């Protein structure tokens, strides 16, 4: 059932965010420390464990894939509710922040690429090429 996937996703998100909250109060900061990251970690671990045991049906996966498929629209909605008028004065900072990192990152790729070749050939992932323009 599709809801199994969605429920699993919700459990992982709730636990992850709880870990972040707990870690925040443990470390004495008013923040959710890495909650979403923990949640993602949990989701990867639980789903790959279930898939390996053949307990995760494609239909359950659809209950997760729907949400991953609409993350861009959700980010669009999130952008539309920000205080952009006040943020405008920081526009140049945002542009420099964006460009600077990309420039350095591009320059580093050849060096990182040379560090270590993969042990085995990477698996073919052709079938996973998204046909749609956008997730």
């Amino acid at each position: 059932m599709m809801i199994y996937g969605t429920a699993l996703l919700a459990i992982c998100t709730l636990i992850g965010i709880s870990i972040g909250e707990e870690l925040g109060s443990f470390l004495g900061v008013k923040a959710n420390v890495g909650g979403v990251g923990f949640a993602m970690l949990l989701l990867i671990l639980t789903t790959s464990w279930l898939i390996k045991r053949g307990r995760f049906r494609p239909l359950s996966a659809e209950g997760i894939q729907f949400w991953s498929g609409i993350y861009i629209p959700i980010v669009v909605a999130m952008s539309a509710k920000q205080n952009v008028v006040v943020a405008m004065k920081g526009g140049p900072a945002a542009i420099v922040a964006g460009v600077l990192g990309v420039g350095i990152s591009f320059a580093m790729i050849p060096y990182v690429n040379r560090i270590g070749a993969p042990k085995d050939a990477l698996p073919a992932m052709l079938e996973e090429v998204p046909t749609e323009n956008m997730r």
Partner: protein
Amino acid sequence: MIELLRHTMEANGLLTAFVVVGVMMWVSNWISKTLTGGRLHGSAIAVFGGLILAYVGGVTTGGKNGITDIPFFAGIGLMGGAMFRDFAIVATAFGASFEDLKRSGVSVMIALALGITVSFVSGAGAAYAFGYHDAVTLCTIGAGAATYIVGPVTGTALGASSEAIALSIAAGLVKAIVVMIATPHLAKKLQLNNPHTAMVYGGMMGTHSGIAAGLQATDPKLMPYGLMAAAFYTGLGCLVCPSIFYFILLRLLP
């Protein structure tokens, strides 16, 4: 009739939000295809459209919550709120596997760690140079320079202002656009023609939409490799930015 529809749409805000954002996505994809020949991904145009909408809302109402201060668009606040956002972002991790990451070699892991650090440091550094000096704002913009997802997640986690979150989205958006446009031109120089390099590239860049569009224009067969690294980048970013990086910033700032 129109009054009735308007009333219904206001009373069912979340559904109205789905319609509004759906139309925005459609228009953005159309612009992407016809005006940019697909070079600028529809997703980047749509996120930009979201920021414009927020600006319009702010100017017309004088409020702080972008377009959602207009009652008709209030549902966008729920759709783009922290709950749905975190839920959808966690979902993007589905399909990534640690075994594939291990198999791809140590260079991809180095690329991930280095990619996030480089983007964060240059983003936070730029923000500092432009006069933002509090740890929460710097951390949010630095995380935004990683991706426009890691930025807002970090900002919300740290209780940043909406202004800081807007800037982090903008920084991530600029990054995504640069990656989209530059990748096909740099592909030859970077020898971006094999799965391994695609994963290193994905790990260094991390921006899902930028990588998707960049590799689509370079060699669509490389897309899944770059995108898998991007999924790990997002996860790692959401993990380290509002934690380790934030604590380091707290230490560094007076």
